[in-house]
């Protein structure tokens, strides 16, 4: 009964981050240095990819883009502010299905239940996924792989003949789910502060799975990450063309209103329907002001079965993924192409590959062939699968690639199959 009264009491109040800080000073301090608060990881990797050399800014210090644009790096902050940083702690979300959450501490620490809303210590997975969706680790845990943008992929139709409603502003293919998810575990079961660990640091599999049974874990694959073998699929999204258009040219996007961006979907639908000319504007999600120009985007292609291996900072072999291979276009309000499909600056491609751990873990590891037989054909878009710029890691060395095809491997593998 007391609990209920407290809940109702809480409902009446509109909690702000400041209210929490009054009591939870320590936690608040910790939070301010966390990546969730600064988003420096995502910001700096993109800025570097777009040609800013020593980038070290945070959500709080990210500058505005220059008005006089000459190269992609002059636009990267605008791109980040309006296209990427939709999911920081203080953002007012767009209210799409799956993306409803509050701001500040309550962005994570609140819970919707039948009884109402309350703050909670145990963070629901839905809260995490409201940001960690699309191409990123998060929704892959539930086996979700985003569908392509074009309306021709929006299936199956609902009973009234309308397009299916999307979660996080996108449609998904359903692939294999992570075994931890199948067993009922949520994000915070692993990513937590327990065991005296700072949750900013990555938790490793070995923290739980201390006993490694089989011989090949130790004998052959000592310096490989668990997820490289035990992930069933991974996200490879090749070549992202982004285009900021300051002119009101919407007609060609009629089949591509869905661009994993709920605001853009709504905006384009309105603009295509309206007889009046609607100004091309899009919000800056950091200072929450509407600014001129609309950012459009489109992939070359995306795969879940492809794998590119690399080595991370610690020398562990991991799966690499492109985040992303950019091609940048910018048309100003006069209609002149300031940047026309720029894919490299000074010979350096605008791309960033990074090692990552797909959250699509299965008990049974991949067959050896999925790593040992990977051959990348050259020519056409096949060549997009060859990493040119790798962050926080490097490509496999010659000895490592040779080892993939070594006689020793073949012999051992043949024995296993016999």
């Amino acid at each position, binding site marked *: 009964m007391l609990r209920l009264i407290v809940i109702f009491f809480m409902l009446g109040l509109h909690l702000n981050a400041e209210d929490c800080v009054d009591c939870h000073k320590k936690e608040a301090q910790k939070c301010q240095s966390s990546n969730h608060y600064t988003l420096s990881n995502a910001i700096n990797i993109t800025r570097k990819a777009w040609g800013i050399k020593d980038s070290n800014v945070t959500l709080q210090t990210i500058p505005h883009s220059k008005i006089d644009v000459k190269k992609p790096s002059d636009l990267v902050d605008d791109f980040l502010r309006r296209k990427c940083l939709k999911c920081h702690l203080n953002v007012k979300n767009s209210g799409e299905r799956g993306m409803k959450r509050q701001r500040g501490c309550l962005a994570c620490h609140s819970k919707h239940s039948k009884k109402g809303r309350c703050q909670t210590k145990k963070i629901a997975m839905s809260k995490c996924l409201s940001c960690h969706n699309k191409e990123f680790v998060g929704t892959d845990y539930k086996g979700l792989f985003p569908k392509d*943008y074009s309306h*021709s992929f929006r299936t199956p139709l609902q009973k009234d003949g309308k397009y299916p409603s999307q979660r996080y502003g996108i449609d998904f293919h*359903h692939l294999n789910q992570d075994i931890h998810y199948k067993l009922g575990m949520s994000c915070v079961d692993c990513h937590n502060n327990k065991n005296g660990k700072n949750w900013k640091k990555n938790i490793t599999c070995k923290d739980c799975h201390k006993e490694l049974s089989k011989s090949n874990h130790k004998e052959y694959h000592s310096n490989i990450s668990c997820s490289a073998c035990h992930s069933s699929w991974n996200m490879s999204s090749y070549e992202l063309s982004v*285009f900021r258009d300051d002119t009101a040219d919407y007609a060609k996007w009629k089949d591509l209103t869905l661009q994993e961006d709920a605001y853009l979907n709504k905006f384009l639908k309105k603009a295509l329907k309206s007889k009046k000319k609607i100004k091309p504007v899009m919000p800056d999600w950091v200072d929450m002001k509407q600014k001129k120009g609309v950012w459009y985007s489109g992939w*070359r292609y995306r795969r879940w079965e492809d794998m590119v291996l690399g080595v991370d900072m610690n020398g562990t072999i991991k799966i690499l993924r492109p985040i992303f291979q950019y091609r940048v276009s910018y048309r100003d309000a006069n209609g002149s192409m300031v940047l026309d499909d720029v894919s490299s600056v000074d010979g350096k491609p605008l791309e960033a590959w990074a090692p990552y751990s797909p959250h699509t873990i299965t008990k049974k590891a991949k067959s050896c*062939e999925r790593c040992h037989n990977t051959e990348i054909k050259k020519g*056409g878009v096949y060549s997009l699968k060859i990493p040119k710029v790798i962050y926080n890691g490097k490509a496999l060395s010659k000895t490592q690639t040779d080892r993939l095809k070594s006689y020793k491997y073949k012999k051992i593998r043949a024995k296993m199959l016999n």
Partner: protein
Amino acid sequence: MNLEKPIAKPSSPDQCMSCHSSTTNMDKSHPIEVFGCFKCHGGNRYATNKKDAHRGVVLNPSRLEYANRFCGECHSDVVKRVSSSMMQSQNGILNVLKFQWGELSTPIGLEGVVELKDKNSTSLAESHFRKACASCHVNQHEDVFDDKKYARGGGCVDCHRIEKGHQEKNHYVHSKLSSKIPSKNCLKCHNRSNRIGISYFGKFESEGYGTPYKHGEFSHKLDGSRFYYELPADIHHTKAGLDCIDCHTEKGVMGDGKKNHHMEDAEDIKCNDCHKPKFKKADSLAVMLSDLNGNIPETKSIAYTNKKNSPIYNLQKDKNSTKFYRKRDGKAFDMSNMSNKPYHTLDIHKRLDCTSCHSSWVPSCYGCHEVYFENGKQFDWVKREVTKGSWQEFRSFLRFESPSLGVGYNKKIMPFAPGCQVIGTLFKDKKVEKFHAMAMAGWDPHTTQKEVRSCEDCHFNPASLGLGRGNLDIKNNRIFFEPFYNSKKSGMPFSYPIDGFVSSDGKQFQTTSRKDARSFNKKELQKIVGAYKCILCHDRYSDKIYKDFNKSKILFNSGKTVCLD
């Protein structure tokens, strides 16, 4: 009362030239000064006033309903053949569609477009055929296409017209017809379904992003709203720039007068017609065709197709060389014959069609969600009017890598791809009905490369084996496969993975487009995957274990040969 008529000093046998004096010649074989206009267009050749002269004129005499009267006066044999050819009747498409949708028990039987003309059918497959497939046949009316850029049809001119008639400054350029048909004419139609036309040029119809954006617009456009990305093109294109007609013979394309059921019955050319040619004396048709071409020398010894014995008059044998001439411009290439290396002669791969190794990729469009709105309205390409009921097409995902393999229509192993995986939703008056007709089809994807797929790509890649994308492993000679795709959760009305042709224990999930075509069965799967352990080390065809692989296996199993220490 008319006294004296105005007479143009005739440069043609018809008076038409007194008005149409500026019209240029169509081609060298039909000069206006000999043929005049009337022979081809009808009307009144002597009248000099517009009304009388144009009475009964046919603008496009090559439409098949007129062709008999005009073109057919000289080319009656061809007109007859084309009228019953598959490109005109589309019986292959209609029958396979009806077969796959469960309306026919075998993929043969119906006549095609002609049969549907005056028929009011309630069949779902026929409705779909009318509203989608039937837009492409030789005798389609060009004028029903809103966008003239993509207009198809018109009878003989559908293929043979290389330049459309148009008015130039001071003269009218008559439509130019030619027997040197440029590939772009073939591509007007052959760019969908199995997409061989675009695959040949290394274009893969993409997910529709139009990326990269060039000059603020979409790039890599195929047509209106379709886009592509570049993949390695067919070697015949990259190396020699061959056009479709360089291989495809006249009989193979325009029909042989027989009633063919499927594309492969009508098709004439095979890889070994050129790469393992048999030379014979040039017959009169061959001489005529090379004369007509003008660029190809007349030689005594030329190749013939094995199937229909049509002359391949551009593959000629001289005393000391074999030359292949490109029909477009007569450029000569040295013909490379199929080698006698072990990979072509060994028994282990004798069931393989050339395409199973040499096709590097196949456009595979998974999950064709067909939606039918009973109350909608859509253009009926057979009746050429808007009728009730409309179809809309959706898809799940596209792939080009590691094409699936299966046993094809010729009982040989060849690449397979979805063709077509229909997941239908029918929005009827008050209720919603569902059906699905999942099928795979095998064909020559026209993405030939000299380099072949690696051994592992066929012997241990689940996608190639037809299992689908996922994780494959074997233990104690049993195949274990865990697919990535969860069809049920993704909203499909079936539980097998959408890219799964066959289960790991040999159960075929999907139908095919032919009676004889099928996926691998359990035995075959085990044989293929079972060979992989040998392939790991013995990765050369020249390896002696392949000379008699069965014997080698027996020897190995009985412990007489040792390979692993």
